[in-house]
């Protein structure tokens, strides 16, 4: 009997959650936005506190956002790193900090049983509002970061990414890698991190995401508790608009590797871009759909030139990169690049076929529910929707917007946005002489 009841409940839940992953939102009294989704079925919750404080806010101190973020859990309140880690692990909670291009965040996954939940929440709140930034921890974390940057030099793929973003973005804050460079990180002092924290980790710049089995009332209290001691501060200026490269560029970087890593692209689109859907669906056909995309077929299936060949748009607050990539044996790099160029030139000129578009729509719409079928995936979506202030019905309206895309709208958007003659191309590998 009891199990039958449970089944009925689960059934109703499934119906609800997928006709609408119902996002509720409100502002705290200090002006932070809160986004909340009640999911049932598991006694757990995912919580994020997000700031506009990613590497785009580094200024000239490339790497300061990321190092600031990683310092947070090394000491807070009266606790050192061991005590912090123990407090989370004692209650089976999982805590992490992170930083990407636009965003920096603290995230917590915890069980909802009050005693366990409260312990984890108080620990997170302390890290958020009272990190200690002590010199000893700073020296260690800085050394570890510097070692990581040295290790990065072993990777041809990482070298290619750095050169690619520089080619696309020049002096724009999107140009440098989030971990920075040895030369920039070496100059940091602990006060630089404290300053960064004080400027950006403030209520006016904060957003809270709560997805899990908490009631709305519990979610409200959670957000309030988390942010209660955070100063209001100010919202930072967002990164400036991106300038498009005026000319195409090809750059080869010599590297002792067996493969050449090829990246080619341009600044692409931003999160609220007018062309978002034609570009998204268009790219899905070009290189975004795994084993059935054009690039995969041309480069791997027909010619065996590479293991992976793909393309994607990474939408940021400003235009994020449109990036095509492959890796191939050094002596084949010119041939592979020629195939890549031919494929993108033809695609921009002709657009997809009607049949390709129908297949892409079927794939995107048919697999739509799988984009947020776990608590963690749903949390990522809600966080993205909240941070970029997209409409709350973004998920529900996604399929119909995909449906509205036509062959013509894809061709038009690609012709305006992806001009093959402007492509920035980086090849890192050993040149055959």
């Amino acid at each position, binding site marked *: 009997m009891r199990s039958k009841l449970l089944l009925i409940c689960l059934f109703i839940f499934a119906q609800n959650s997928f006709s609408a992953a119902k996002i509720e939102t409100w502002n705290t009294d200090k002006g932070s936005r809160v986004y909340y989704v009640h999911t049932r079925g598991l006694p757990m919750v995912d919580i994020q506190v997000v700031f506009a404080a990613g590497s785009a806010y580094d200024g000239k101190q490339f790497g300061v956002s990321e190092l600031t973020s990683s310092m947070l859990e090394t000491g807070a309140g009266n606790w050192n790193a061991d005590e912090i880690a123990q407090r989370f692990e004692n209650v089976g909670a999982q805590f992490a900090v992170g930083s990407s291009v636009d965003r920096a965040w603290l995230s917590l996954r915890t069980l909802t049983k009050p005693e366990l939940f409260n312990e984890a929440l108080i620990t997170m709140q302390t890290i958020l509002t009272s990190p200690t930034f002590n010199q000893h921890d700073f020296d260690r974390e800085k050394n*570890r970061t510097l070692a990581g940057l040295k290790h990065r030099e072993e990777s041809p793929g990482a070298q290619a990414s750095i050169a690619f973003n520089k080619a696309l973005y020049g002096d724009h804050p999107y140009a440098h890698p989030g971990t920075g460079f040895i030369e920039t990180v070496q100059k940091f002092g602990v006060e630089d991190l404290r300053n960064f924290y004080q400027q950006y980790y403030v209520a006016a710049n904060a957003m809270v995401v709560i997805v899990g089995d908490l009631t709305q009332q519990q979610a409200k209290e959670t957000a309030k508790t988390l942010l209660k001691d955070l100063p209001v501060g100010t919202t930072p200026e967002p990164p400036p608009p991106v300038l498009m490269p005026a000319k195409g560029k090809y750059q080869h970087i010599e590297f002792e590797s067996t493969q050449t890593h090829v990246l080619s692209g341009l600044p692409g689109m931003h999160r609220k871009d007018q062309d978002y859907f034609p570009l998204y669906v268009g790219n899905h056909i070009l290189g975004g759909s795994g*084993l059935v995309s054009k690039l995969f077929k041309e480069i791997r299936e027909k010619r065996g030139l590479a293991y992976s060949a793909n393309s994607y748009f990474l939408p940021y607050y400003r235009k994020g990169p449109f990036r095509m990539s492959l890796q191939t044996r050094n002596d084949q790099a010119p041939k592979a690049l020629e195939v890549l160029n031919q494929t993108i030139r033809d695609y921009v000129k002709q657009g997809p076929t009607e049949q390709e578009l129908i297949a892409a729509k079927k794939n995107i719409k048919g697999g739509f529910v799988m984009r947020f079928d776990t608590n963690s995936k749903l949390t990522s979506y809600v966080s993205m929707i909240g941070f970029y202030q997209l409409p709350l019905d973004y998920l529900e309206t996604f399929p119909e917007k995909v449906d509205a895309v036509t062959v013509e709208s894809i061709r038009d958007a690609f012709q305006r946005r992806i001009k093959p003659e402007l492509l920035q191309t980086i090849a890192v590998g050993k040149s055959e002489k």
Partner: protein
Amino acid sequence: MKLQRFIILLLMFPVFSQAADVKVQERILNNGLKVLVKEDHRSPVVVTQVWYKVGSSYEPGGITGISHMLEHMMFKGTDKHPVGEFSRIIAENGGNENAFTGRDYTAYFQTLEKSRLPISFELEADRMRNLHLLESELVKELQVVTEERRMRTDDKPRAKLQEHFSAMAYLNSPYKNPVIGWPADIAAYTIKDLQQWYERWYAPNNATVVVVGDVVPKEVFKLAEKYFGPLKPSELDPVKPQTEVKQLGVKKMTIKLPAKLPYILMGYKVPVLTTAENEWEAYALEVLAGILDGGNSARLQSQLVRGQQIAVAAGAGYNLTTRLSNLFMLDATPAKGKTVQDMEVALKQQIDKLKTEKVTSEELARIKAQVLSGAIYERDSNFYQAMQLGMYETVGLGWQKVDEYVNKVNQITAEQVQQVASKYLIDDRLSIAYLDPQPMKKNQINKTMTGGRHAQ
């Protein structure tokens, strides 16, 4: 005291009382195919995984990596569905798909909206018995796999070290060979090799189909009968034991490669669930790995990276679900001014401490708390749940063992941890590889064309 209370609270979750637990349903078809179904109705989706009991540890010399090569060729068409069709059909139905090969398994998966389950069954059943292995496709796919090897191993100093390390640590166990295969073997595969490998291992009585998602088990079994039922079983020769011989002393090697940082990798030969004299030994080793590296509070982070600050990174790992005995691994990257020898001393001190002192009750409780909560978090992912069932079944443990994990770990005592440390983490079982970084050539930039920028 407080910690004990947290553990009690964790143990009270319904997920650990058998009554409320979602049961896995099993059905074995007449042709020997095992079908496992686990219901999860949180989302209208379904994961299908087809696991074959074959992987690199089944391969004789000369054709290492052939299981992985065959995995690639499984996307190259059948009589009914020519090359490209499989992926096209799955894509049109909104599915995600791919495959993976390990030492003990080759597995294929699709994730689909729940009503599309018959589509994946139809396609998987078809390629289980009717694969077309064409010379023209092999020629291209050989290139692809060679590129994959370059990307995963050849251009990564630590991956290469790992490969040489395994080849040294194991004397006769097939775990000495890389999953992707040695380069000379990859270059020499023939269609005949692949055909034989396919015919030998791809049969319903050597496979497990795992389905997790918003499904009704009875209906899944009916579908399985319809699509997989007609397939003929094979006569399977049992795989040879190839049990690793006893090691007679510590083994060491130095790997010289262009690199920027030194690195050390250590491994002790240890039993796993399938091979342990006493099953608890494997669970005790699992707890021991947690004591060293289970979270940010664990010993290696706390003592080597933070306390002594002699390593910029240090880790420990153990996988108890393999078919054959395995290695308990440790690795470290020295901090500036420290050497790999310093790392070796420090890691061995950590091991010695586990032998001479019992782990504290707090540490033990913390590991258990993480295991208990982890068991709930894992349920967030159908894919992960299916992975576990498929893995346990395929390495010979049986899927029923998945449910035992939490309780068995929970029963491990400090004395047992000490016992396995003393018994297994000894020099006569140890292998060590040091990465000795050689200078890297300075990167040169050759620009052929550059341009300015303008506002848009």
